[in-house]
């Protein structure tokens, strides 16, 4: 079986959001997250990035749990449900977004969903730029360290250092964006109202299965869970 394309993966990221509204107890939430893990876990390809993304989600969930518990009348079950609702939304995105390639997503959005090609190209290049911001951050940090402006003397220096690195990366990115716009136009993008796509956009069995799983996860907390138990 071929691996699923970006559209079904994107759908499987977004659909569970609908299901999250029905997570009203810790029991539903725990079952839901468990089912999600089984249903989508086999699709993950980049465990390190998934764990990183999930960590952000869990941080958010913990803060929701604490604040709901403290200010919402100290109901353990209700607070846990609120936290698990977040995890139910974040988990599919953490598992699947690292699998989606910007170029493939562009191919599918334009050829299968027939979205207008110029915004799609712009979005794909922007996604690709986000990847390169990490590299730019590293370069700017290296340069600042070599110049004696690195963030390593005390908490305050560290914080201001972080801020100025971020600012420098912002400036470099914006300058790059202008050059990138020139480079894209110089390669015919300015005139391209119609364009072709170097990659195909097939929809296979695996896509239908992943889409089905996404729909299932959007329904599970509403109907399937009450039906099973």
């Amino acid at each position, binding site marked *: 079986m071929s691996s699923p394309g970006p559209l079904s993966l994107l759908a499987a990221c977004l659909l569970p959001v609908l299901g999250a509204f029905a997570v009203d107890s810790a029991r539903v939430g725990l079952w839901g997250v468990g089912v999600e893990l089984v249903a989508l876990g086999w699709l993950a390809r980049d465990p390190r990035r998934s764990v990183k993304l999930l960590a952000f989600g869990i941080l958010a969930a913990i803060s929701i749990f604490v604040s709901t518990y403290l200010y919402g009348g100290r109901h353990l079950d209700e607070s846990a449900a609120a936290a698990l609702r977040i995890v139910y939304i974040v988990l599919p995105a953490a598992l699947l977004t690292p699998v989606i390639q910007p170029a493939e997503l562009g191919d599918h959005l334009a050829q299968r969903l027939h979205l207008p090609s110029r915004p799609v190209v712009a979005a794909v290049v922007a996604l690709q730029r986000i990847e390169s911001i990490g590299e730019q951050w590293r370069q700017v940090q290296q340069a600042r360290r*070599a*110049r004696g*402006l690195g963030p390593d003397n005390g908490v305050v220096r560290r914080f201001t250092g972080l801020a100025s690195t971020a600012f420098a990366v912002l400036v*470099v990115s914006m300058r790059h964006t202008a050059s990138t716009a020139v480079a894209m136009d110089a390669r015919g993008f*300015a005139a391209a109202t119609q*364009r072709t796509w170097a990659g195909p956009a097939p929809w296979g069995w695996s896509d239908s299965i992943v889409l089905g799983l996404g729909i299932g996860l959007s329904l599970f907390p509403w109907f399937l869970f009450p039906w099973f138990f």
Partner: protein
Amino acid sequence: MLTQVSLSIPAGQRVLLAGPSGAGKSTLLRAMAGLLLTADQGDFSGQVLLDGDDVAETPGRVGLLQQDPLAGVVAETVGRDVAFGLENLSVQRDEIWRRVAGVLAATAFPYPSGHPTAALSGGETQRLALAGSLVLGAEVLLLDEPTSMLDVSSAQVVRDAVRRETVHRGTTLVVVEHHLGPWLDFADRLVVLGRGGRIVADGRPDEVLRRERTTLASEGVWVPGLPAPEPNRIDEGVVEPWPLEPFTSTGVRLGNTGGAAIVTASGIQVRRQAHLTGGRGTQIIALDDVDAALHRGRTLGVTGASGSGKSTLIAVLAGLLEPNSGDVMCAEHLGPLRRRRREPRPWKWRSAELAARLAWVPQMAESGVVSSTVFDEVMATSRAVGRGEGSDVARTHRRADAILETLGLSHLRDASPYHLSGGEQRRLMVAAALVHGPHGLLLDEPTVGQDRATWAAVVGCIASAQSAGAAAGLASHDLEAVTALDADPLRLEHGRIG
């Protein structure tokens, strides 16, 4: 920037455009592509016509390769990046991949089309950008220093590819270059843009070269047959290494240890992971089992093809990268004090400690900018390591003024570093690395984009710092610079000592 420039180029002509650093060559090229208003600020008057139509109204017929190749990367893999222009021209998929494979073969690109663009070196990215321009088969092709980051043999491969892909199509070609020699037998016309943005010479290359030889040399053009200029040395007092605090108080002077190694790398390996989405990726061994040392009063000249690991080695010696295995150690007396002992590993040093000892000129000059004016830029490190205050201010200012003057940047003192030309930005990074008086000077391609005069200034500054007692490490494909500095050669091949 440019004043009263009028040029008429017949179809199929191959034009070489030369002139001093900062004369406006890149600006003229962007204007010719009809893309001046996309990225530049300022006023533009006049017009650019292609077959009688405003060039801005006929996009796609003019291809432009920009000076900074990194900004031109639009895709995650080599193949998709080259394919970008063909997609815009609505070429069918089979044909796209046929032509992508064709141009990658024609430019002898060393990697398959699935290779991540993030894993390419500076020179390789430049070759990728060229492939992406050539593949379009545009009527007019504008190339801004297309071989500036390439070693001699890669540059030859690239020039041959340009020739093969353009001659049979009758492509009109404009190439901006400092070094005219290798392009001469291929060009029909030589246009020289002088300081102040005016055309000072125009005609058949051999005639212009015969008639205007001295004008060209004085405008900084690398006239073929003329030997490299003498390095323009600067007063050694303004580039000598600044004594480190603990030694002046204990009386240990650095001047006593002539010729000694100040940084030694032994058996180092550096691995890098280039990621693609979906967990796919390539592990690259950038350096493997490399020994190198920086000696006081000497220059280490690191050469090798693009992608051979030159930049990585320079970054390791500059204390910016921790090697995956092997040791990088500084001389005993140079390490900063940690409790009772000295820390010998530069990558462990704090930023200010590192900056006081070793300086680095990055290959991508723009990412090194830390200030909003040229003067603040060259003062930044002195201020950060505490040499910009009290009694040191006058001395630091004197050094800054002299170095800016020599490198031809005095008139830009209050300008924003981002508004400088590519060559000026690179000289600014060299100035910023010298003013605070580091003991080791690591430079990554410092002579790219320099005309004869500015080249002599850059090499002269390095030579003077070296005779004043600094150790230099230079990664470059510019063999004339390596020779002029009488450097100890170290040639890398695929991350190993060749």
